[in-house]
């Protein structure tokens, strides 16, 4: 991790206002923000560790534990909600045997809900690793998760 972190930091100047882009880059590389990485970032940006932690915990994008290889984000926005999102979430929770905010013990899947994916015209939708899956039904979800599990 040390080396990968150094490589990331070397593309920044070490200024306070770069904090968020730095953390985003770290998470892109490592998948989440390990404690040691945040300590290092604090030193690099010349801010107290508490500042890094305060900023990182404020934004929904940042995570402090590893996520699954398939990260599922379920939209709970208005359009998706009125088109059956609660049933989609239930079905996914049932299929994966985890709840919102959790990761399966084998790290194959993690589940999160988000405010809106921005594909509301095709609701209800979810995102699996950055790909939007639209016009879902509980049936389609079952098929999707099986498929998503296959190509690991």
């Amino acid at each position: 991790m040390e080396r990968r972190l150094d490589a990331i930091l070397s593309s920044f100047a070490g200024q306070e206002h770069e904090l968020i882009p730095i953390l985003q880059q770290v998470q892109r590389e490592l998948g989440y923000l390990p404690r040691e990485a945040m300590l290092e970032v604090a030193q690099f940006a010349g801010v107290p560790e508490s500042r890094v932690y305060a900023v990182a915990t404020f934004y929904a994008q940042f995570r402090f534990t590893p996520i699954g290889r398939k990260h599922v984000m379920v939209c709970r926005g208005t359009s998706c909600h009125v088109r059956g999102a609660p049933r989609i979430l239930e079905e996914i929770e049932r299929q994966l045997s985890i709840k919102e905010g959790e990761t399966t013990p084998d790290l194959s899947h993690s589940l999160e809900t988000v405010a809106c994916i921005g594909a509301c015209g095709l609701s209800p939708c979810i995102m699996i690793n950055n790909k939007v899956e639209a016009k879902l039904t509980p049936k389609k979800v079952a098929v999707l998760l099986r498929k998503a599990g296959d190509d690991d």
Partner: protein
Amino acid sequence: MTRSFENLRQRAQVEWKASQDDGKPRILVGTATCGRSAGAIEVLEALQRESRNRGLDCPVVEVGCIGLCYAEPIVAIFKPSRPGIVYGNVNAPRAARLIERYLLRDDPLAAEALGTLGPESVEGIPRLQDTPVMRHQVRRILRNCGFIDPAKIDHYLAHGGYSGFTKALALDTAEIIEEIKKAGLRGRGGAGFPAWRKWQFTREAKGAKKYVVCNGSEGDPGTFSNKLLLESDPHSVLEGMLIAALAMGADEGYVYCPAQYSLALERLRTALLQMREYGLLGEGILGSSFNFRIEIKEGAGAYICGEETALLECIEGKRGVPRLRPPFPPTAGLWNLPTAIHNVETLACAAAILQNGAPWFAELGTAKSKGTKLFCLSGSVQRGGVIEVPFGTTLHEMIYAIGGGAADGEELKAVQTGGPGGGYLPPGLWDTPVDQDSLLAFGSSTGSGGVVAVDRRSCAVDLARNSLDFARRECCGQCVPCRLGTRQLFDILVDIAEGRGRPQDMELLVELSEGIKRGSLCGLGQTAPNALLSTIRYFPDEYRAHIGQRRCPAGVCRMANSSQLSRTA
């Protein structure tokens, strides 16, 4: 303006024209996010493969989105001496069939077509502009979306792109602002503040440096039009930034765009490279004394960062917590320097105004809201998507004439406008002409243009609970009325939804709401109770059924067995 830019423009126009008249067929595939989630990339590949296998010399071009989400993936086929034909719901097998039947033989497969482009029709296929979904729309801000390749600055130039900016370069700054004033342009991000005043304040403010910030946060659930613009015509937004910066004397700009809008970010990055290459960014732009650079800031997932001062905090690398105002950003914004913040669509409007003139813009709209507005139709409608209509269009026209009415043969019961801070309006109010002020009297707003249709399968209490769930999660935590208040409202709504409501709860909700609206520091808390208040106002019987009879008329809420209250107060 330099000679060389004029040459670039002419070359772009000549090349565009040549590509239209070269006697070859051409295929466009909409590959913006909506298209992709419906399978547009598979369709693109199928079209490329099939035309190669069939020995056709036929370019297959990726374009943005024309806003007809319901019909994605969308393909347009241009055959020489025929109008372009738009096809909807295409998949790989149908794509292959289109090539076989229309390009190789001459059967346009009329039954699968949505319409033709331009003034002519083809037997059995209406003109797209005459179809119900398009007839009521006026495509001005969306003019290029779905027709040009958003990754090519030349396509934008060939359609009048950057002519607004080159015109502005020849004006003095007061004249540019006067043009925006005459157009009557008001902000599209929600508050509807007159753009010219913001420009004037920023221009007059003292500061060693000034900034223009493009707000692409688009956090309201049920909105996706900023994303569509950034993905489908990014230069139209960036041209607006150039014009604003020129008018205000700013030399640095930021585009704030959520990290999850990955395609929009990619298109923005490409566009900025091209602007640099064409001399539209940097020092001494197009031979003038105007310097400007633009940086992209990726949002990290916080709704509150759509609020302009929280957005500034985020760019500065801090927690995105709104600032106390005044001072307002035009006097003290980014790093305390004068800053003008505008929504994506407002900036695209500014570019269109300079390109076409203020009278052209102001000829549409209502007395106090000029021009057209993008609305995002979603929820229970047959034809969801992004539409562009003049201000003054009614919700009824949007939902029925354009949207085709409720999905699944249902009956509609409410429409949410104004995003999470707006309200749910009942059918009786759908004939109100919608502008930037008209819905306020009914406890809602136009906001950034979300229009979510709700049918009888939804429950008013559950809708309010969903809105307050959003508010309590997205509250930044800074001020007490919003932080504790939204949580209390949510808990009471959970109690009601689960059959633990008490007779005095409706009154309690209203009273609490008024306090939160008055006591909150920013727009989030000030508008968070609106969804709840509107459902109590227009659907009181549903609340009474939950509270008095432990019954959910829509059959959505599940009554709990426990009588343990969620609320603490």
